[in-house]
């Protein structure tokens, strides 16, 4: 156990040194680090609890995604059957399906053929999965179309991806520094903004779906009548800006916000009221031109998130593809609406399910407290090891110091986030690293008592203790691994440092401590062991 070839010794020392060197960028300012070669730039990121900032966990409303999919299928059914000139009755969304009744039995086959074209084969990474986007069944002329689960899950995944992209754009528009936006689980998104102290405006911006539609106002009855009786099948009653204001609006969308290419806040030249100017892309401009040509003299509605912003009357066809939205905005509201329109609509509403904001004062205090605790803890441990094991205690202290440096090196390599629980993890790892040395030295003491010669006792002590160290560290490592997979946020930070610490302390116990002791034995040729 005490013999090392020269190569092996060199390899051990080089590995330890190399890992420690990875920690170097943490001690320099960002500017200096930027001049380092790319591979050497990785460093530990301070968690929001240490540097201050705001973290929001958003939940994508998947029910809306499902509902919209159903609505789209419903619209498709109408279009397909009309095109095929198949008479039908009772087209409706029931539960998770669209049902339609084909009036004449002889049309059922044609209808099934045509509707079958709506169902696309699903393709996965490995090509066709054999599943289709719609399950279609027929019970004597009553056709049921159900979006299949894999297709819906696909949609949800897309919706979350799209939401992440749009959030990214919105956050960038707000001019926030270094935001991090990532998916959490299936339908959640974690937005972290370092340094942000009051997330009120961010929450407002993220909380809006910003789904903008241009639709016709339904004049077949008044909104009051519609509320009292029942609105026509293809219209709905929507709220206006003012409390109690209602409109009856057609469900059919003339042009949607997706066709917008630009939006900017401005002022109305006549009233000097804040407005938002927008411009359509060519497809949007064409659709808008057509719609306005056909409906001169009638009112249309600008609907934002199912609320009518304004409902002006079309005086003349709007052909240029440009327009403006006015709706008693404040300057800030007009500004925010322009941001939202530029960034695009979210495919589904987002709810904030968790918020965590840490002010810079607390973060600074936590760093200081963590540093203090680390110094005091290290001081106590070093002193205690020295008075207990003397020279060997010093060896242990060197190994533990290298161990801590290596933890920082590995964390830098991983670009890991250091949180307060993470610091606690490092402090505890110091305890584990010390334990490895204690196990070895106690075993050596025992072997000495059993009457072995110094070198023999040291050799046997290492051999026997290392098996125990391996067993006990693996159990703790399992706990750390499970913490990492099952935990979230603060627990994860703790698990990472604990796990990394166990690995590095295993390395130092198995190689470095042994190497130091081996060299000491080779140089001093001791007759007794000084522990």
């Amino acid at each position, binding site marked *: 156990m005490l013999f090392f070839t020269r190569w092996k010794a060199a390899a051990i020392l080089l590995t330890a040194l190399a890992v420690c060197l990875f920690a170097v960028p943490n001690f320099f300012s960002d500017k200096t680090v930027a001049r380092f070669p790319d591979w050497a730039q990785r460093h530990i990121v301070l968690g929001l*609890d240490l540097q201050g900032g705001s973290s929001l966990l958003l*939940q994508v409303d998947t029910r809306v995604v499902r509902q919209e999919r159903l609505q789209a299928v419903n619209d498709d059914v109408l279009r397909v059957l009309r095109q095929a000139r198949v008479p039908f009755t009772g087209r409706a969304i029931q539960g998770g399906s669209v049902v339609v009744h084909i009036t004449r039995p002889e049309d059922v086959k044609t209808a099934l053929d045509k509707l079958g074209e709506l169902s696309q084969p699903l393709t996965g990474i490995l090509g066709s999965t054999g599943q289709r986007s719609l399950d279609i069944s027929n019970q004597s002329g009553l056709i049921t179309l159900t979006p299949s689960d894999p297709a819906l899950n696909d949609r949800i995944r897309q919706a979350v991806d799209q939401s992440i992209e749009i959030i990214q754009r919105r956050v960038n528009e707000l001019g926030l520094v270094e935001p991090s936006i990532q998916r959490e689980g299936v339908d959640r998104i974690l937005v972290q903004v370092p340094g942000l102290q*009051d997330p009120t405006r961010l*929450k407002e911006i993220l909380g809006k779906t910003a789904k903008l539609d241009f639709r016709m106002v339904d004049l077949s009855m008044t909104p009051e009548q519609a509320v009292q009786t029942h609105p026509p099948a293809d219209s709905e009653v929507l709220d206006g800006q003012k409390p109690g204001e209602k409109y009856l609006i057609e469900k059919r969308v003339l042009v949607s916000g997706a066709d917008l290419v630009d939006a900017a806040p401005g002022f109305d030249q006549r009233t000097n009221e804040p407005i938002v100017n927008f411009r359509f892309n060519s497809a949007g401009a064409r659709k808008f031109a057509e719609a306005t040509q056909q409906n001169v003299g009638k009112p249309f509605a600008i609907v934002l998130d199912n609320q009518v912003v304004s409902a002006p009357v079309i005086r003349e066809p709007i052909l240029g593809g440009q327009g403006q939205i006015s709706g008693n905005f404040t300057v800030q509201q007009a500004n925010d609406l322009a941001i939202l329109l530029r960034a695009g609509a979210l495919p589904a509403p987002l*709810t*904030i399910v*968790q*918020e965590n*904001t*840490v*002010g810079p*004062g*607390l973060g600074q*205090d936590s760093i200081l*407290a*963590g540093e*203090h*605790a*680390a110094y*005091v*803890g290290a001081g*106590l441990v070093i002193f*205690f*090891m020295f*008075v*207990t094991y*003397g020279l060997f205690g010093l060896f242990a202290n060197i190994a533990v110091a290298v161990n801590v440096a290596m933890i920082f090196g590995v964390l830098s390599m991983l670009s890991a986030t250091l949180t*307060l*629980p993470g610091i*606690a993890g490092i*402090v*505890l790892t110091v*305890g584990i690293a010390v*334990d490895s040395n*204690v*196990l070895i030295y*106690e075993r050596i*003491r*025992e072997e000495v008592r059993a009457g072995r010669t110094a070198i023999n006792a040291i050799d046997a002590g290492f051999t026997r203790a290392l098996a*125990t160290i391996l*067993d*006990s*560290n693996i*159990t703790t490592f*399992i*706990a*750390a*691994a*499970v*913490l990492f997979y*099952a*935990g979230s*946020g*603060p*627990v994860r930070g*703790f*698990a990472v440092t*604990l796990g990394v610490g166990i690995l590095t302390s295993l390395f130092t116990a198995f190689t470095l401590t042994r190497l130091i002791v081996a060299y000491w034995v080779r140089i001093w040729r001791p007759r007794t062991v*000084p*522990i």
Partner: protein
Amino acid sequence: MRLLRIVPDNTRFDFMRFRRISFPISAMLSIAAILLYFYHGLNFGIDFVGGTLVEVQTKANPADLAKLRSTITGLNLGEFQLQQFGAPDDVLIRISEQPGGDTAQEAAVQKVRNALGDSVTYRRVEVVGPSVSTELLSYGTIGLLSAIVAILFYLWFRFEWQFALGAMIANVHDIVLTVGFMSLTHVDFDLTSIAALLTIVGYSLNDTVVIYDRIREMLRRYKRMSMPDLLNISVNATLSRSIVTHLTVACSLLALLLFGGQAIRSFTATMMFGVVLVGTYTSVFIASPILIYLGVGAARMGGAEEPDTPPELEAGQPAPSKPAPSRPASARRARARR
């Protein structure tokens, strides 16, 4: 230089004799802890029950708690608590979960921000909605349980099943007592507490494994020694290590407890209790003697140390050790070996 010997060489404490005291004591403490859990309850943090936590530093020093209380009472947010936290101008405001789902929690924070305005600086705002809090609790529990099971499988693989079972009983004992401690002291039970519990599990196991390792070694070396003697020798041999290690861990924890700041105080206090007090005691007085009842080593002697185990003790065991099924199994193995 004279080196410190905390534990003298060659100690010969008869630890196994203490099982007649330690098992009933542990049983009583465990029952007390369970009763505490059910009747006194845990002080669940917002991670698990949802709600809002706002830490503010008031411009007035010290903070005017009465004024704060009346301001927040005026917001009609239901139940809330104010707590001095660290410095005299530091106040922790906890608002219980608002009815009305995730969005209602956000609205509550906004109300508090509007009401307190510029009179405070915000050190920390945490909001946990109901959809997350239930998940966090179940994830935490699943994490804790799966960690124990994973470790159990590892021990089963490395040792014999009796060792795995013994370690698990010791482990559950530690968790139960620590949860009892948390209930008694009413420290916050949140996600970091789960991390603390898991670390305690890891540490306590670490200690148990070190002793078990030695027991296994002794079992191979001394084929004729009686089980209690063998266990005593093993525990005594590892005693110095246990104490030195736990003193160093206690040093680290003490530093964290005193200087690590308010934010992780409940975490370190729990760790101190679990690792230093319970963990050490358990591995010596529970995990090791329980191996006698689990029938470890009985095979070598053909159950010769049976008379050492007074029958009235088996009734007083804190945890089910199932000595009955293990004996025939080990007896069978003994026969096979002969």
